[in-house]
């Protein structure tokens, strides 16, 4: 246990359009790697904790448990975030996930508009997710990494809106970053995630 490892960026650091090499280096190598390291550290500490006191007000055990979901979710979302970029943003209408977006949101543009509004409103992430409870796609809003997740749903397109994701490139202009992110999406990859989620 406690051996989660950092996944390499699946493309060159300078290969995204509108998200700089510098931001990718800091974001991937420092922030994302930091969540993986902390997740390992927390799991180790939990395993080695001598006095395991449960207490809803405060206990070391409880705090470690609380931080565990923050860091685990941070790791997971960043991995998907990087996996689904590296494309040219073109969403082929023949892809199942694109058909499903049109079905559930009315049109691809309507999805994009809702996704962007969600991203502008979040304190952590906006996530296009498949929810098996109603069989539909949703843009969910998540604060931090772990507040606002819907149980059982699969994240397909998570956009990180922590300021470390865009501030160096865009300052407070988060909207331009969201546009750049959407233009870097690899819809073939996203379609694979969708197929796995609906299998």
């Amino acid at each position: 246990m406690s051996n989660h490892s950092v996944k390499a960026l699946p493309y060159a650091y300078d290969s995204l359009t509108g998200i700089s090499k510098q931001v990718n280096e800091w974001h991937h190598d420092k922030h994302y790697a930091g969540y993986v390291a902390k997740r390992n550290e927390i799991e180790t500490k939990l395993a080695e904790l001598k006095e395991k006191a449960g207490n809803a007000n405060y206990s070391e055990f409880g705090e470690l448990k609380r931080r565990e979901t923050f860091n685990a979710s941070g790791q997971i979302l960043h991995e998907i975030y990087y996996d689904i970029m590296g494309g040219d943003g073109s969403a082929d209408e023949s892809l199942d996930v694109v058909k499903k977006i049109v079905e559930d949101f009315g049109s691809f543009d309507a999805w994009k508009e809702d996704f962007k509004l969600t991203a502008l409103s979040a304190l952590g992430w906006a996530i296009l997710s498949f929810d098996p409870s109603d069989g539909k796609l949703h843009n969910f809003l998540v604060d931090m990494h772990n507040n606002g997740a819907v149980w059982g749903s699969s994240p397909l397109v998570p956009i990180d809106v922590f300021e470390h994701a865009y501030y160096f490139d865009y300052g407070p202009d988060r909207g331009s970053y969201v546009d750049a992110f959407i233009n870097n999406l690899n819809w073939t990859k996203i379609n694979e995630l969708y197929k796995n989620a609906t299998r």
Partner: protein
Amino acid sequence: MSYSLPPLPYAYDALEPWYDKETVTLHHDKHHAGYVNGLNAALEKLEAARESGDFAAAKALSKELAFHGSGHVLHTIFWENMKPEGGGKPMGEIAVQIDNDFGSVDAFKKQFLAATNSVEGSGWGILGWSDELGKLLVLQSEIHQNLAVQGIVPLLVCDVWEHAYYLKYQNKRPEWTAAFLDNLVSWENVNQRYLNARCK
């Protein structure tokens, strides 16, 4: 009555080299201004709700009020907490109280930096006075309004939202907080706030 953005109490480049002009400009003119606007909007919507008697949005509006209200208050204190050629040792009555409540200035500084550096996500490190507890406390604040001890009066606040430091310090938050404490803090301002806050 609506609130307006207080002007920065010094020039935009006055805190160089520790706090760069570009970050200060964006931070004050965009982010702080956004909280002032958000606070006014929340108050207007609440006034409209009182007039119409429709409080369906009471929960969302109360949260909006806490977020933007705290954002405005903390940023106002933050700017006044700094000055060019700041830093150094606490002075006046607060220096005595820091010794009393933390043991020494060094111990206080270590605790303040450790707490501020470990704020989860976006938030603040805060030195505050609690009249009820009769004590200075170092606290973390997540976002702007979470994790407070009720009744605390913030005296010294360090912003660790990434917009506060990312352009200059990137992911090296501890370098920003050390620069804030060692080179920017106006202890005159912190001491004055302490004198104003202390009633008992």
